């Protein structure tokens, strides 16, 4: 399977090198550890996305067309998945964000982590990124 978005294709190829689940999760966890530090004072209720099983904090701002996102989770696995998601969506222009579905999650066999029923905050983060991008587009149009 080949994905149209080169960044996502890259991620898929990296995961193909990791043969078993322990290596894949080890890799995800390492990516999470390398996320830029999220300031404690930004871990506010307003910046919190609600997940039943884990929490995610996010701050986002737009520069011209592009959307800049910083996020972290209290879960090491979710933080790693955030790192992957930011690699795909961070600092990209709003139009691209809206037209790029997160196919890599499916392709690396982690679909259940993005499911709304999993409730780990990752889906909430994805929805948040999409809504910021749509809002940016709407502002441009008006």
């Amino acid at each position: 399977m080949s994905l149209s978005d080169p960044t996502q294709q890259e991620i898929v190829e990296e995961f193909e090198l990791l043969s078993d689940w322990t290596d894949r999760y080890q890799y995800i966890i390492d990516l999470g550890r390398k996320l830029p530090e999220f300031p404690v004072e930004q871990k506010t209720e307003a910046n919190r996305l609600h997940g039943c099983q884990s929490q995610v904090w996010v701050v986002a701002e737009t520069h011209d067309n592009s959307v800049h996102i910083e996020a972290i989770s209290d879960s090491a696995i979710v933080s790693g998945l955030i790192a992957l998601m930011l690699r795909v969506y961070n600092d990209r222009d709003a139009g691209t964000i809206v037209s790029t579905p997160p196919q890599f999650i499916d392709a690396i066999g982690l679909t259940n982590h993005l499911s709304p029923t999993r409730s780990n905050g990752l889906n909430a983060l994805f929805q948040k990124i999409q809504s910021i991008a749509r809002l940016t587009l709407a502002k441009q149009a008006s």
Partner: protein
Amino acid sequence: MPNLSASKLDTCFDPFKIREDFPALSTRVHGKPLIYMDNAATAQRPQQMIEACTHYYSRLNANIHRGVHQLSEEATDRFESARDGMCEWINARTREEIIFTRGVTEGVNLVSQSFLRPGLKPVPWQLLCEQTGAELDVIRINDRGELLMDDFESRLSDRVKMLAMVHVSNSMGTINPVREMIAAARAHGIATLVDGAQSMPHMRVDVQQLDCDFYCISGHKMYAPTGIGVLYGRRELLQDMPPYQGGGDMIRRVTFEKSTYNDPPSRFEAGTPNIVGVIGLGATIEYLKSIDFEGAMAHEQSLLEHATAALSEIDGLRLVGTARNKSAVLSFTLDGIHPHDLGTMLDHQGIAIRTGHHCTMPLMDHFGLPGGTARASMAMYNTIDEVDALVAGIHKAAAILA
């Protein structure tokens, strides 16, 4: 010649033999044999119950209490014999004290609406307070997760309308001293309701001995189908309670001016009920009567002892809920590891546990656990080997996550 050795064997509980009755236990997940330790969320189901449900749909399917035809009569017989079965299993005085509900949730709603505040929308306690100005008073617990009896007794007064409590805590496994608490409440004229969701699969329940007014049961936690449960209610109280929903069966006579209510239990079972659920519940009770239930209880206690000792030896593991009287529920945290991550790592090893708040957020706040806990909850078909696999699984998870 009587086969003495065989009858002796029957009283010796064998979890490996019991496992054969539960087809879902032979499932594989992520290519590994399933180790199912999420029984406090829902239990697995015995083949005997599954067959009773299949038999109903394939041979007996008809509405009950209505038809004069044979199928309807047979279905009605099965349905009503499940009521007798439950009546006997929990030692209710009469079969009329057994009301079929969707589960504990509906039982609690039924009581809150029909007994405490007739005419209001069905709501659980907190909403009831918002609607009526009633106050919700909460009994404090100690660090073991046990209710503080002094605190409980200090809250009893003639102003208290109802005492509601769980028989066994879902998140910590604490077995509450409900019999003593009910006696204390009744001395003040306080009505009592016990949530038996977590007790029914793991212990003998005798509602006359407990002397409670209401006892709520969920089928799916006690190896029966989902969507079916029982509200036991003391007959004198049920007799004076108005219906909770309108529909067929709850009414004796209808004119356009006024309807006369039927007697309990029909008064509270409006409309076509969950017939297959009731028949499945009946079959489950028959199954539980056929096994060595006391042996199962003893086995679960040995699982608890073994798991408590083994988990306590893991570095950085903290057990949450260490009541002296406990069912086989082990809630715990691991230093520096989020319960969600631990649960994910165990899942990949075929081990199903629950992580999070277990719908008991105030309790998690009490213990200072914003991420909740990981919870392994056992049933009679779990084995010592599985507990050892859980311990090995936690070590492996910790190695990946550390």
